[in-house]
C-alpha cells in the first residue's frame, strides 16, 4: 500500500477554529512555507491552535513567523495557542524568553 505523505506544515479548519500542524523540524529552510500558511491564517482572523506533538525542533525563523501571526491575530481579537509542545521545544522557548509569549 502506498504511503501517504503529508505536508509537515499544514492548516485545516475545524469549525471556527483553525488548526496549524507543525511536524518534524521547522527551520529557516521551511520558513517560507510556514509564512504562506500563516498569511492565509492571518487573513482568516480566526483562533489558531498550533499542534506541536510531532514537532521535533523549531528555530528562530519559524518562531518569528508564529510571533508575527500571533500579533496579526491579536489585532483582530483572535489568538494563537501552542499545544502539545514537546519538552525540548518548551525548553528552547524558555531559554529564548518566549515561553509565555502566546
Amino acid at each position, binding site marked *: 500500500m502506498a504511503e501517504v505523505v503529508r505536508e509537515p506544515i499544514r492548516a485545516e479548519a475545524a469549525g471556527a477554529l483553525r488548526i496549524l500542524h507543525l511536524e518534524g523540524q521547522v527551520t*529557516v*529552510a521551511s520558513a*517560507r512555507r510556514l*509564512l504562506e500558511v500563516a498569511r492565509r491564517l492571518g487573513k482568516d482572523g480566526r483562533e489558531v491552535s498550533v499542534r506541536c506533538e510531532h514537532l521535533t525542533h523549531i*528555530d528562530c525563523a519559524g518562531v518569528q513567523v508564529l510571533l*508575527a501571526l500571533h500579533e496579526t491575530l491579536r489585532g483582530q481579537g483572535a489568538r494563537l495557542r501552542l499545544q502539545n509542545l514537546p519538552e525540548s521545544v518548551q525548553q528552547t522557548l524558555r*531559554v*529564548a524568553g518566549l515561553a509565555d509569549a502566546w
Partner: protein
Amino acid sequence: MQIDLKKFQETFFEEAAEHLSTMESGLLHLEESGSDNEFLNTIFRAAHSIKGAAGSFDFKEIVRLTHVMENVLDKLRSNLLAPTADLTQILLRASDRLREVVDATHRGEAGSVPIDDILPELEAVLNGGQPSEAPVADAAAPPGVPRGEVVYAVVFEPELEFFRQGQDLFLLLRELGELGEILSSECQRSRLPALDELDPEHCYLGWKVRVRTARAAQELRDVFMFVEGACRLEVTAEAVTAAPEASAAGAVRTERRAAADRRVESTSIRVSTEKVDGLINLVGELVISQAMVNQAVAALAMTPELEEALMVVQRSTRELQEQVMAIRMLPIGTVFNRFPRLVHDLTVKLGKRARLDIEGAETELDKSVIEQLGDPLTHLIRNSIDHGIEDPEQRALAGKPEEGVITLRAYHEGGTVVIEVADDGKGLDRERIRAKALAQGLIRADQPMTDEEVNGLIFAAGFSTAAVVSDVSGRGVGMDVVKRNVESLNGAISVHSTPGKGSRIRIRLPLTLAILDGLSVQLGRDTFIVPLLSIRQSVRPEPSDIKTVLGGRGEVFVLRGEPLPLVRLSRLFGVAGAVEDPQQGIVVVTENDGHRFGVLVDDVLGQLQVVVKSIERNYRKVEAVMGATILGDGRVAFIVDVAELHRVATRRKSPEEDGRSADGAAAAPLQEEVA
C-alpha cells in the same frame, strides 16, 4: 527563495577542516605550552566552532564528540587538568576521530564512524582529572580565573542577514544557558514586521539574557564566536558575588580582545576558488586580447597619444594579472602544518627521536601547486624518518644528538620556489643503491656514474633499498611517484647526500601553474613554447657539432666536447616545412633531471610570459605537450613538456619507429590537433 543548506554545509566542512588543523597543531604543542591560556583558548575555540556549526546542521555525532573534547579542554584551561603526554595522545586520537566523523558526514555517511570507544576515554579523563564534585568556581582557581559567580548581561542582536550564517541562534542561547543559570531572557521583538512584510529569511529578533555563572566573560562570548561578524554582542558584568576586581577586569580585557578579533576578521572574505579561477581565466583572456590589439595597431600609423594609451593599457593589464594571481597565493605553511603530527606519530611508532624544524612557512605559492604538494612531501618526510634518521643509540655512537632534526624549508629563488626536506641522519648508502640498481638491471656494471647520478637512482620506478618493508616506507613505490608529482607541477627534484651527515631533497617549483615564462620557437609555420626554466642555452650548430650515432638511428649535438642527445622537434610533432639542416636552425639546450639534451628548432623568436590553457581538459592528453597558449596574433602555440619530451625521445629504440619519422609516436595526435 529557498535557502540552499548544502551551500552552508560545504562552508561548514571547509571551515571544520581548518579548525581541525588548528586543533591538531595546537595539541602537538600542548605539553610544552603548559598552562598558557591564550594557547589553550585557540584549541578550545577551534573545537567550539566545530561544535556550534555542527549543531546547526544537526550533525549529532560531531556535536557529541566535540562537546566532550571541549569539556576536557575547558578543564585544561582552568588548570583542573595537567597537559601530560598521555592526555595529549588521547586528545590527538579524539581529533583524528573527529576528522574521520566529519569526513564521513561530508560523504553523506554520518554515523558510519564509531565514537563510542573514544568518548569513554575522554570521559575517564574528565572524571579522573576532577579533584572533587565541587563546582569549578569553588576549586582552587589559578590567578586570572574568577573564583566567584558573576551575573552577566548578554545583549545579542543578530543582523537581518543572520540566517545566512547557517546558525540556529536558539542553540546558541541554549548553549549560553549551559554555562550557568539563566536568570532572565528577554526577547526583543521591536523589529518584527507585520506578517505581510515579513521576509522569512531575515532575522528580526534580539535578546537580552542575564546569566549567573562562574565562567569568564570570554567563555560566554565564545558561544557566539562563530557568528561574531553577523551580530552585535555585548557581555557586561552586572553583579559580582566574589573577587569583583579580577572578574570585571577580565570582562573588559576580553571585550577589547574580541573587538580586535573582529577587526582582523573584517579584513578578509571567503571566496570560492571557482570564482577566483573564473577571474584568472578572464584576465588571461584580457592579456591575450591586449597583445592582439598591440599587434594589430602596430601595423597602423601610431600617434604619440595612441602609443601612450596602449602603454598604459599594457601596464594596467599586467598589474591586474599580477594582482589577480596573488589572490590564489597561499602561504606554504598551510601544507607544512600537517607534518609536525606526522613526525610525532612516526617517531613514536619507530622508536626514534626526531623533531621537525619548519622554515619559510610564510613563503607563498599558488593554491593549486600547494594542494598537490601534500603527498610528495609526506612521502619524503616518511622516508627521512624511516631511512635517514638513525635510532637514538646509533646516533649517540656516531656522536650526534639523540634527537634527529628534519628540516622543512621553503624560500624564493629567482622567480621559483624551492622546498627542501633535509635530515641530519645517516645519508644515502651509495654502495647499496648502486648494488641494488645493478641487481634490478637499472644500470650496467661498467657504467661510470657520478655521486649525483647514483643518488638520482632512488627516483627510478620500483627502486628501494629498504631491507625490511615496513608500513612506513620501503615498498619501492614512492620516490618515482614523488618525482612524477613534482614534474607534473612543472618542477624539478634533486637529492644531495653526505654519508653520516644526512640528505637533502630539493624541489624547485614555479610560483604558479597558470602563467609560464617561456621561449617561443619557430617550427615551419608554427610556434611552440619551451618553458624557460628548462633551458640552459641556445646555440647555432656548426657542421662538426652534429654526429649520428647507433648506426644512424640517433643524433647527438656536441656541446663543448660533451655529446648531448638531439631531438628534432619538427619530426616529433610531425610539423611540415621545418628546417632539416641543423646548421640552418638553432639547438636549444634543455635540462631535465640533470640530463641535458638538445632540441632542434628553426628559430628562436623571443622570451614571453604565456597563460597556460589545458589541452587535456578541452581535448585530451597530447604526448610531450603540457598545454597550449594563445599568441598575440590569435594563433595557438603548444607548450612543450620538457620532462616528457626527454622520456619520449630517449625511449625510441627501433629503427622502424625512427624510419617512420624519428618520432612518429607523438606525431599523429598533434597533427590532428593542429588541423
